[in-house]
């Protein structure tokens, strides 16, 4: 017991020796360190904690401090100046004039890409459309786009129902469109695939009053399932409600641009 007391006192700071540690606490320590098992556990815990702390410090150094230092240690950037003497230089004026002319030319060219004609923008993430005329937004609303479903058969066939992204053009406008069901429409319902001209391929009144083709079989058309507008539920086509479809049909001409993102 005496040995243990002196062991404790040696580990204490000068000021704490001889009575700074409350008696109760000291006797508790004495009892704890008296047992070699407890002492071993305490030492082991301290080593593990210390090791863990060292590892965390090391990780923080490698993962955060070194990248931070990389940002500090870099080359010196020359300061940008406005030298009045240079501004009078003939060659400088020539260079500035040429550069300025090129910037203006590129700016005009870039502005010309946005057509004054009517066009439609479709956001497939939020399922919203934006109709423009003379570069002004004239109508916006909900639509439905591709569901990102991959339909697979037990054989080799598979279809991915997604709306293509990029720039397209209206290739055709149809009133009272009839849906010619593709193979997947039958496969999806577990029906046998009929011949290409079989009457079961044709379905009337499901595409609304109008349809606008953007190529590769993709259409902008109406829907019977208006409650799904604003959701990705289609097989790749863009569905709209009746009023929006009519407005779009009347605004866009064959050749009008369709931007899908």
């Amino acid at each position, binding site marked *: 017991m005496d040995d243990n007391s002196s062991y404790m006192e040696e580990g204490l700071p000068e000021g704490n020796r001889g009575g700074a540690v409350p008696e109760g606490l000291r006797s508790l320590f004495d009892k704890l360190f008296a047992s070699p098992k407890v002492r071993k556990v305490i030492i082991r815990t301290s080593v593990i904690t210390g090791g863990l702390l060292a590892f965390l410090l090391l990780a923080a150094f490698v993962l955060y401090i*070194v990248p931070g230092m*990389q940002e500090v240690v870099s080359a010196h950037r020359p300061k940008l100046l406005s030298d009045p003497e240079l501004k009078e230089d003939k060659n400088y004026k020539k260079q500035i004039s040429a550069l300025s002319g090129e910037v203006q030319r*590129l700016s005009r060219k*870039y502005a010309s890409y946005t057509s004054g004609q009517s066009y439609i923008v479709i956001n497939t993430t939020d399922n919203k459309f934006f109709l423009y005329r003379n570069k002004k937004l004239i109508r916006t609303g909900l639509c439905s786009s591709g569901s990102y479903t991959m339909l697979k058969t*037990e054989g080799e066939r598979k279809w991915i129902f997604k709306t293509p992204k990029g720039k397209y053009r209206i290739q055709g406008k149809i009133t009272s469109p009839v849906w010619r069901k593709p193979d997947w429409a039958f496969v999806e319902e*577990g029906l046998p695939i009929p011949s290409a001209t079989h009457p079961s391929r044709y379905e009337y009144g499901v595409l609304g009053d109008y349809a606008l083709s953007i190529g590769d079989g993709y259409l902008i058309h109406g829907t019977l399932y208006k409650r799904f507008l604003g959701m990705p539920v289609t097989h790749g086509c863009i569905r709209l409600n009746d009023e929006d479809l009519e407005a779009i049909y009347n605004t866009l001409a064959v050749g009008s641009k369709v*931007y899908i*993102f």
Partner: protein
Amino acid sequence: MENNIEQAPGKNRQTGPVITAVIITVILIFFTIMSLMAPGKKLKEIRLKFGPEETSENQPDERLYSDSAYMALLKERSFFQARTSMAETDSVYMTLNLSDSTANLEISGVTVHSVKISSFRFSGILKRTDDYAISSMLAQPMNITGDLATIKKEPLMVKMAPKDTSEFKPDVIPDTSNYEPVNYILEMDNGIRIYVYQTTDTLKSNNRRRFYFDLRDRLSTAWQYAKSAAMFKVPEYHPFIKIRLPKADAKIIYRALPRKGQVAVYM
């Protein structure tokens, strides 16, 4: 002699950790030195590839490259050049204008989606490299070579076709709840990495997931650095542009950009 024999194990016990600590410190110092050399190497590469060409016939006026009016025009021209080049395609591309804090999605020169960048920061190397080299580098659109994200680019759901009508089940209404955190990294062909983080979320779990996402990237970079350092090579430094966007807009941009999409930056 007796004393020596008794002290030997104790000595070993003491010298073991010391030797380990010394080895770790040496490795750490070496790793740090190699890591700190990396930006310098990248800087040299950028200057060599995109800096002003000096030939016996072409002696550029050095004063031009420190003239604010000339450099402003040069930066503007570079941005237009990159955007015009991308507008020639029919694909979706992104433009980042850090001077007015906007990120745009464009298709063939038409801005289809515009978002205000909440905050941004970029590598010291991009801040400190001379403007001419940076402008020249950014005059070409950057091509995305890879990405790492917390959301799927295409949230594909696989559906097996029913064998007959008895197996047919109508489609369920898709789950459009927006609970996933949106953070991603776009890796560019010129070595620049664009980090897009959603603005701070009220959901604590999303902030935690952003921390783990960031940690994963840091670990991967540290691993690459360690591998290069082990082979006594200066590691490849990736200059970065880190932007924060509202969650919905960050998602729109990520989903809209093609896997091998293009980006133009004005800084």
